[in-house]
């Protein structure tokens, strides 16, 4: 792996990473899809994972979130080992995962979706929902509607809000702007920046690499399931190798 910029830890003056993934190997039972991947994410920063199709970006997120099992490597959340925990326990450790598709409960209302997002909270459910309604005013207006009746953009907002109900340390977003119109894409990025500002470590997997690298404080490039290089988002934006990987996307 090549590192183009100074290590983010020294830049952050030695704070414990919210998420520290080391040497993670995972797949769907056959040959591993991601192999020995390491990433770190800090609170209050957007960390991007980019790479060509089939690089294993979504698989990596699923493995971190405990949706699929990893066969090697460790996951540390806020300094505590969380390797191999099932997803319903990881969420209690502060990992919130928003899948790319099927990321809301279609026949629950918006309000019920948020309640389910906060299922592991012992108290403060209503207060947290109110906070999120302030962040996502569209949802407030639609709070009694079934999620399946929402527009694509609203559904993405609901999916993020559902994940945020636990007040997570780390928010894992799998292609949040996929399939949305450019107008909604920028609205989604605006919300992601707002979430980041609330001291959450946001980890974003995206196909729209240029936009993602602009927002990312630190970015990892995965190729064929392995770390290829990493660095500051803006540095990678002008890196020849990254540009070559995405001919037609960045140019």
């Amino acid at each position, binding site marked *: 792996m090549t590192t183009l910029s100074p290590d983010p830890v020294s830049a952050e003056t030695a704070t414990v990473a919210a998420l520290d993934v080391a040497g993670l190997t995972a797949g769907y039972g056959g040959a591993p899809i991601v192999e020995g991947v390491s990433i770190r994410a800090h609170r209050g920063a957007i960390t991007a994972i980019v790479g060509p199709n089939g690089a294993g970006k979504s698989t990596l997120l699923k493995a971190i979130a405990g949706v699929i099992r990893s066969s090697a490597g460790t996951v540390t959340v806020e300094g505590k080992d969380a390797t191999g925990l099932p997803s*319903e326990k990881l969420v209690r450790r502060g990992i919130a995962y928003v*899948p790319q598709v*099927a990321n809301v*409960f279609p026949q*629950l209302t918006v309000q019920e979706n948020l*309640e389910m997002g906060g299922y*592991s909270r012992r108290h403060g459910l209503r207060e947290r929902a109110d906070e999120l309604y302030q962040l996502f005013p569209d949802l407030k207006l639609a709070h009694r509607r079934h999620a399946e009746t929402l527009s694509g953009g609203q559904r993405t907002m609901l999916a993020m809000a559902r994940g945020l109900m*636990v007040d997570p340390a780390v928010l894992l977003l799998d292609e949040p702007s996929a399939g949305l119109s450019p107008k909604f894409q920028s609205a989604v990025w605006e919300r992601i920046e707002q979430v980041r500002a609330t001291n959450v470590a946001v980890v974003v997997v995206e196909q729209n690499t240029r936009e993602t690298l602009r927002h990312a404080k630190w970015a990892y490039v995965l190729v064929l399931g392995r770390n290829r290089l990493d660095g500051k988002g803006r540095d990678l934006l002008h890196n020849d190798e990254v540009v070559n990987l995405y001919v037609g996307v960045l140019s």
Partner: protein
Amino acid sequence: MHEALLTLGFGLVAAAILSLSALAFTLEYSVTNVANLSHGEILTVGAYCAYLVQQHGGGVILSGLAAAAGGGLLALAVHNGVVDRFVRRGIGGLPTFIATLGVSLVIQNVLVIIFGASNLGYAVPQGAPRTVGPFLWTDTEIQIMVSTVVITVLLYVIIVHTRFGKSLRAVSQNRSLARVSGINANRVAALTWLLAGLIGGYAGFILAESVGTFSPYSGFSFFLITLTAAVAGGLGRAVGTLAGGIIVGIALEFFGGYVSASYNLAFAFAILSLVILVRPRGLFVGGRRSVFE
């Protein structure tokens, strides 16, 4: 006209029993995506539990509670011992379906060993028929319908308004998302099967009360009709299943009254085939995508 209303009255009793059985079946299906072929045995075991209580002098209420408890425990055991082991490994519908058929055969034959294969009946009499408006119902039949309404309303409140009910719906709509939301999906599924078993066991008791006799095979024959009602209503959907139970229950009674009661099962399967051909997602699902696709 009068005769038709009488038949409708008997149809409502049949509809009540069928609705409870179908609701229980659809609950089992909703959280595990498995059509439980041993559902009928939950009813059968319920009927036998009530029988044992009556043998020891228990009344109707105690018999009903025993039936529910027996059905609940059996459903929980089938879920935790068989179904959940497949679901956890991500093994799909068909192998699990066949495993539950195995469970069904085992339970039927264990009951034959313990109680024999012949028909048994309850000692508590049905009571004389009495006129209620245009209908003619015995005390037992009134008990069956009133208790069904109470159970259905309770179930509705549980599913719609309680935290458990919401988590049940969340698991049925998207198990993986439910888990990343912090819901212990296996536990919710186990509790749902327990709830379904309580209802199914009680349904077995009122079925035996209504028919008058029962055997180790009664639940399985009734399961075939239950399947018709649940599929007609839309598998995994409580409200549709309830409607399916009522419609199929009444239709069967009319068929039995005006054509031939001996061909009830054939008629039920004719309905099932027709529904699968014309409205494979159920009568009330419309154009909307099913939850399970």
